[in-house]
């Protein structure tokens, strides 16, 4: 729907308020879980973190457990909401599709300057794969965390086998979570992906960026203004992209202030006429 696209400002809405709230509830509580979880390991006192100003509490395992619990409530509720809400609405843009694995390899190669990117839908193929990976990691820390919590509150003498499984899986998967988080940050820091960063803070990305990189998304998004997307795809196919891309490249990643980007000029003029 055209309500998503604001040509004046060169913006296209990428995430709704709800999606932003979900992302940040998960991200902030996830970071709180990471920090408090690490302090649940006997390391704050050992590495003298307790003597840093403002970190005296880090050696108190009951305090870190309380923080871990509070963050868990947000984390679990957000994850469960996400699963049920988007599941029921059949919103599957982030789920992997056939051929994503192969396509991801190609796309990752382009990050290192090899070959050219194919036109994307809303999400990149490797983003969809990363999403499933992250979802799996989150599911395991949540399930094992729930077992650990149940043991703490109701059953200190829970079967040792179960407690061992829950504890060690929690430990292995919190390490995987740290790696996945690092990968996530690493991915958005990559230059071609950087325009997505403003999206996760404000909800919208540059229209020229979307037109150039995510034409399949725009086509889907705005059935009432197909010209923009068609135009973009045509542009891509006719090799005009190369020009657009180099221009973009020389804009040294400036991606926020509207009007100052070369994208404005690169935007197909035809769409303006159309409206």
């Amino acid at each position, binding site marked *: 729907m055209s309500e998503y696209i604001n040509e004046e400002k060169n913006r296209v809405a990428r995430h709704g308020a709800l999606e932003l709230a979900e992302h940040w509830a998960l991200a902030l509580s996830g970071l709180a879980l990471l920090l408090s979880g690490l302090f649940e390991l006997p390391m704050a006192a050992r590495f003298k973190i307790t003597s840093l100003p403002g970190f005296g509490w880090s050696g108190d395992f*009951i305090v870190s457990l309380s923080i871990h619990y509070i963050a868990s409530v947000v984390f679990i509720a957000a994850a469960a909401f996400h699963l049920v809400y988007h599941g029921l609405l059949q919103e599957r843009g982030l789920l992997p599709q056939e051929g994503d694995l192969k396509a991801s390899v190609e796309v990752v190669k382009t990050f290192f300057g090899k070959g050219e990117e194919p036109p994307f839908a809303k999400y990149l193929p490797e983003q969809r794969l990363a999403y499933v990976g992250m979802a799996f990691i989150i599911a395991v820390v949540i399930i094992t965390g729930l077992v650990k919590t149940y043991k703490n509150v109701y059953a200190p003498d829970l079967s040792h086998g179960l407690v061992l499984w829950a504890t060690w899986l929690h430990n292995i998967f919190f390490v995987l979570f740290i790696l996945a988080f690092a990968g996530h940050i690493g991915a958005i820091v990559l230059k071609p992906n950087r325009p997505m960063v403003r999206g996760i803070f404000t909800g919208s990305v540059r229209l020229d960026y979307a037109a150039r990189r995510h034409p399949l998304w725009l086509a889907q998004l705005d059935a009432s203004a197909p010209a923009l997307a068609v135009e973009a795809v045509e542009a891509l196919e006719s090799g005009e992209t190369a020009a657009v891309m180099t221009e973009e490249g020389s804009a040294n990643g400036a991606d926020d202030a509207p009007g100052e980007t070369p994208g404005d000029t690169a935007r197909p003029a035809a769409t303006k006429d159309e409206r």
Partner: protein
Amino acid sequence: MKKRVNVNRRGFLKSLAAATAIGTAGALNVPRTAEAGEGKLATLIDLTRCNGCVDKESPACVSACKKIKAGSLPEPVDPIPVPFPTRKVEDWSKKKEVAHRLTPYNLIYVQQAQVDADGGPKTLFIPRRCMHCDNPACATLCPFAANHKFENGAVVIDPETCFGGAKCQTLCPWQIPQRQSGIGVYLKVMPTMMGNGIMVKCDLCTDLLKEGKTPACIEACPQKAMSIGPRSEIYARAEALAAKIGGYIYGKTENGGTSTLYVSAVPFDKLDAVVHRGPGEPGLGAVKRRMAGTDGMGKAVLAAPVIGIAAGVAGAFAALSKRKDRLKKEKR
């Protein structure tokens, strides 16, 4: 320069007399065995009976425990890796004979408390070891599940998986677990960066319990000051004993309840005030289970999936009906 405590003398005498009475009557028909170690167990330590084995070189319970446990630890590596950055190595392997406090090689010791009684000052002897608490943070919060509370009530540290991080010691209100550096899996990972040995404490002779035998200290005591049995029976006996002597119980509510009940004719806060305290020498004060404060939040965590699912269903239906409305409008 120990403080003296004035205990009501007549009460003390009376309770002493009562204690001797039930002592002689009850001692022999009291089951001291763990009945094959099944079901929930508890132990009773009767301070009116313990005489500290003053006639012996070392208390019988302490020697028995040392005999069965001290040799079971492997020798630490030499040199012991120095942990970064604290450089704190705890090595008791050359002081295995120490018996006046808890060490990795001394899992029970007999504490002394001087109190004023009728015939002048009197010394009470208090065998001290892990209390095997009902919901012990030392075990439930172990990051490797190396320390665990078992169905029979015993709280046991597995020396094979313990890293010696001493979180259990920090969380125990009596700081019972003691560290021996230079032993354990941590040596195979990053010995100077992670872990620092293994933690050791009384495990209620869990191996003996499995064979239906009695823990070594209980078996060894010539005074029959300690006993083990089904939890409900031990609790009932402790109550009855305390009622008879007009005495006091320690371990029933401390740290949220334990499976070790001390019965004494002298109030425990008085004993707490006079016992020698320090590392490996726990007090006898009133201690709360600090982790209880997190139980409410823990319950909220367990409810969080339901909250999230309910919100997701409600949200999805709201969004669907909005979509329908919009489609209707667009059709018109």
